[in-house]
């Protein structure tokens, strides 16, 4: 894994904690492959919307509604991969 990928994932973890106000979560403790939704973080559909907005704001990448979005949000790794695959225009 390149440094770039590692730092992107870390940045995404920090963004998740910050944007979703997960005050008791240490970003580095979020596993790359842990399910973001329906998992231990207790995130819901409102969080998905907030996260999508924040990802677009930070990376210029729009996450689609519906199924496309679900794939991107599967895990931190999935999100990082999506961001990398859809560079800001």
């Amino acid at each position: 894994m390149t440094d770039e990928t590692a730092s992107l994932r870390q940045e995404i973890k920090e963004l998740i904690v910050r944007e979703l106000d997960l005050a008791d979560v240490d970003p580095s403790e979020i596993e790359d492959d842990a399910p973001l939704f329906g998992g231990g973080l207790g995130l819901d559909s409102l969080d998905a919307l907030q996260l999508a907005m924040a990802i677009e704001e930070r990376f210029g990448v729009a996450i689609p509604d519906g199924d496309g979005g679900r794939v991107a949000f599967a895990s931190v790794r999935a999100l990082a991969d999506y961001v990398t695959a859809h560079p800001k225009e």
Partner: protein
Amino acid sequence: MTARRVVVSGIGVVSSVGADRTTFERSLRDGLPGIRRVTLFDTTGYRSAVAGEVADFRPGDRLPAAALRETSRTDALGLVAAAEALEDAALGDADRADLAVVVGGTTGGMPDAELDLAALHRDRSTEVPLSRIRSHPLSSTADRVAEAFGIQGPRATVCTACSSGANAVGMAARLIRTGRVRAALAGGADALCRLTFAGFSALAALDPEACRPFDRSRRGLSLGEGAAMLLVEDLEHAIGRGARPYAELRGFANTAEAHHITNPLESGAGAARALGLALADAGIAPHDVDYVNAHGTATELNDPMEALALAEVFGPGSSTLPCSSTKGQVGHTLGAAGAVEAAATLLAMRGGFVPPTVGLSDPDPACPLGHVMGRAKDLPVRFALSNSFGFGGNDTVLVFGPPDADPPPSATPRRRSVVVTARGAIPDLANAIASGDAPPGGSGTRVTEDLRALLHPARGRRMDRLSRMATVAAKRALDASGIAQGDRSTVGLVLGTAWGSFDRSAAFMDRLLTRGPRFAEPAEFPNLLASAPAGHASIYHGLTGPNLSVAALDASGDLAVAVAALEIEAGAADLLLAGAAEETSELVEVLLSRAGLGGNGAQGRGEGAAIAVLEEEGRAVARGARVEARIGGIGIAGGLPDADLAPVAAAAVRQACPDGCDVAALVHSGAADSVTAAALACLGKGGGAGSGCCGKAKLVSVEGHTGRHEARGAVVFSVATNVVARERRPVLTLGVAPGTAIACLLLPA
């Protein structure tokens, strides 16, 4: 006690399919669509460009210029509807003066002020027109209505998000059922604004085109604006003056889902409970119901949830139960919705038709109901329901029936005894104030405790600071009450707040204008509604009883306690948390001082939250609760907004203590000497200052300790309870705001 039945004898409506009742009714019959391109502001970048806008709204054609002075668009919508309802009811002048006014809303003056708020957020020295400051608070519409029509009865403003209008009607009915007034003007008003448009857009809740309730291909809601006012009246009073009521308001129920701040409880169990309670209140069976006016927002989640709830209550018959959503024509009119849709229901009952769900052509199989499509269906409608299921899970159902039906159980007045069994606050000042400690001086108290540390991190994470304050105060009250965690589900909450999350609304608007709609924060928007603190507190503590947020400027806390006491007295709840929360706000202080509304003296605004546990006496005693005080009487009086408050205070005190009372103290929120003197003068038997007893009453003002924040009425109540418990003598509370005075007599247990 004589039965008190509540009827509707006047209707006024302003909507996107008719700015008057007659046109509105014709549109309902014809299935006229009313969701069109928005012209009030630029919708570029939002997920939708359409809404139920009231096109070409000319309030100046309907009202004198004086009535529209310093009003917002929301106020103007409400005023026009009120004028029409009053005319329709043909009330005499004396009856009009005595009316209560109860208005539901969510945006208040935001449509007119939102650009100013954004500018103010960037630069504190921004000029903001005085009219916009006066019309910004939610309570403005009720005050403007009272002023325009010379109405001087009790006044209240309700915010429960999408069910505000319905709860306003319910509250008015409560005032009539408990004998406080013979008639009331009740309803809701809400104008379109960028803030709510951006909020719902950020939540991905908007259909890009006109909404399609219950349709298989629905994509979300359409916003709308409008107002409806109902003249709600005691049946005997209506008959006595020869009025012809549209229908009887037989029953209503208000419950909380305690589930999620935006999403409904998908199983429909919460809504089903409200439906069941409302039918029981009305004394009718599901099979009696001829028509349901649905909440029907056309969101992915609401429509099937509502169908499930109806199926649970109505059984297999729900699939053929005539049903329609007015939102297909007028959009979601938010604070006005419950009232606009009640008006539609009433017109349908009188006219013998079921309006169609415009926008529906292919019903979703997950929503098996007796949908009416296209044009209205002629059908006699004797009994009907109107549903409103609000953000934060506030579920309210109104039940209407013909005035010649047998009286509902709700008509039999109950006058139960209400006691105070616990209190909680942040900061906790009651002891210090009651003990007579010197006020600290300075700019009013601040909450310095770490609110996050006082709440569970995961369960409390969505809340903003104001909601945390309210939730902590509620937690302290619940912990002090001795009610076990598992026994809290039926507990309800009535919370007062005047300005809500004002600074954060300004920040939201600033971000919207500088970054664009795409970057409006979805998680922030629900917190900006005045109903949010009560919603969050009910979710956090699992409270599914009645849930109301009320506003009356400086008397917000007093109003919340009074409303809660009336609910329990009338048998609508057994246990309610009641109080208020208000946050320090640099922007509010800036605006108030510019408007010359900074209050007497140099006292700063401060902040705080205080909540009392009010309980039905028998229940409290049965569970071994420690009773701190008993509510001996409540007075809610109104006057014209710029009038002298002394006679209004006197009227409130006379309601609370009709036979006079020898009180140990008068605890108040900082009322002027002339006002407290007038209040005390009413307490002597036979009236007049010469009776001697009231001269010994201590005067205790909380303002020096709390600051001038609008939740201090709840601290007044807490201090008074403290004094009663210590001295074992009666104490009177008094809270005042422009045009309003609220008094409560507390007696020893």
